[in-house]
């Protein structure tokens, strides 16, 4: 009340440079019936081979984010209610052909996108995805599946707010895998490709191919390559710095000035 006269004389706010609030959008056709403006949370993807440190980093990030008061949700491949059991079965049995396996994974992905990721984003939760469409596409491309077909298929995917690809040289990866499991996984060694009868050699070749493919994908899809060969603490710090920057730049969009202008 005492400041009313003064308030009337204050000129309207000059154009304060507000960074454009990143509008949620899909890579392609997307899912029908999704109200993109209602997606308030953030989708952060951590990609990388087995042994790249994904799970370790995600666990750290969850602790850090929740410590800072952000609600989080974790999603990953083969976790859908719809087809995860059948997918496990299929992988063990080695009975499905490439396009089928590809579509099975895509169904798993779509189910999680619709039933886990989007609802969480609507609720303003930060979703941490352990892998996303890029691993799925890379795996398929290495097996000869048409990248154009894949791009159309995964046009249903929401564009993440950040994608971090933990890149680790294959020789380092293999050491980490042995430290964890003392054995190499058939699929992660690309044994189905017949690159080599020797699993160790196959693993190295396959992981090299995957890295090359990831770099190829980067030409179309935006992601940040993180040197995963460094110590976990160093990697965590880098990820936190980048995520902090992401959350802060969005913070401006939530500022009183921006909200008032939007009203």
């Amino acid at each position: 009340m005492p400041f009313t006269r003064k308030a009337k004389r204050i000129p309207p706010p000059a154009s304060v440079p507000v960074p454009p609030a990143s509008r949620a959008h899909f890579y392609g056709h997307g899912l029908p019936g999704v109200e993109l403006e209602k997606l308030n949370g953030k989708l952060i993807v951590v990609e990388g081979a087995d042994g790249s440190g994904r799970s370790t980093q995600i666990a750290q990030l969850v602790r850090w984010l929740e410590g800072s008061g952000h609600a989080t949700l974790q999603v990953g491949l083969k976790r859908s209610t719809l087809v995860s059991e059948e997918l496990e079965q299929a992988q063990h049995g080695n009975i499905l052909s490439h396009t089928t396996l590809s579509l099975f994974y895509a169904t798993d992905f779509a189910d999680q996108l619709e039933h886990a990721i989007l609802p969480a984003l609507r609720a303003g939760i930060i979703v941490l995805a352990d892998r996303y469409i890029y691993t799925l596409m890379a795996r398929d491309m290495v097996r000869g599946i048409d990248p154009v077909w894949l791009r159309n298929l995964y046009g249903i995917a929401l564009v993440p707010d950040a994608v971090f690809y933990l890149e680790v040289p294959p020789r380092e990866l293999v050491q980490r895998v042995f430290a964890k499991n003392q054995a190499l996984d058939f699929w992660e060694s690309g044994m189905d490709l017949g690159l080599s009868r020797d699993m160790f050699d196959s693993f190295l070749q396959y992981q090299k191919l995957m890295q090359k493919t990831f770099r190829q994908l980067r030409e179309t899809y935006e992601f940040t390559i993180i040197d995963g060969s460094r110590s976990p603490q160093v990697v965590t710090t880098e990820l936190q710095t980048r995520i902090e920057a992401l959350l802060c730049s969005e913070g401006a969009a939530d500022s009183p000035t921006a909200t008032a202008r939007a009203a």
Partner: protein
Amino acid sequence: MKATFAELGFPGRLIAVEGLDGSGKSTQVHLLQRWLEQQGCRVFFSEWNSSALVKSATSKGKKQNLLTPTTFSLIHATDFADRYERQLVPLLRAGYLVLCDRYVFTAFARDVVRGCPPDWVRGLYSFAALPDMTFFFKAPLEVSLARILDNRPVLKFHEAGLDLKLSADPYESFRLFQGRIFEQYLALSTEFNFHLIDAVQRIELQQGLVRQLVAHHVDLPGFVSKRPA
């Protein structure tokens, strides 16, 4: 999409039948199979939504109401890809006559009515070649509806298109849902040169026409197994 199996150099030929539920297409394709087998042809029959592994996910999804237009589309595409890669293509390579009760056009029609972008659905199935012949059993909507409702008075959730929320009443919903699919089929029939069969005619008349057309378009003697029965 692409070329037919013939154009791609496959020794086999694929004949597909399409139509609404209740159009009589399943009866017709079954009779066609009989006829071809009786002539000694190498024939294989495949129907929509029949891959074992995918079936369990589909029925789970339907029971628990987990299916959205996108996952519904993808799961059927997975089923199709499985049959296509494991059965249809190898058999066509081996010089079989493959009969399909429903082919990609079912997806093109249904998934679009459910709300999936047409381009996306077409893209999804672009790995599949086109049939060498496609029969579309065309009956007025009311006739198809009457036939289904005659056989099975209880309409299943997805069959009635209840997930589309066109109507709360299953019968009304079904009517509207099938009507939209029918419209899609009409457009597809022109685009893909379906052989239109009047599904209101007597079964024997329809089958006669089907057999005539097949004999005309396919070199049947070439499909007769050389080995004695």
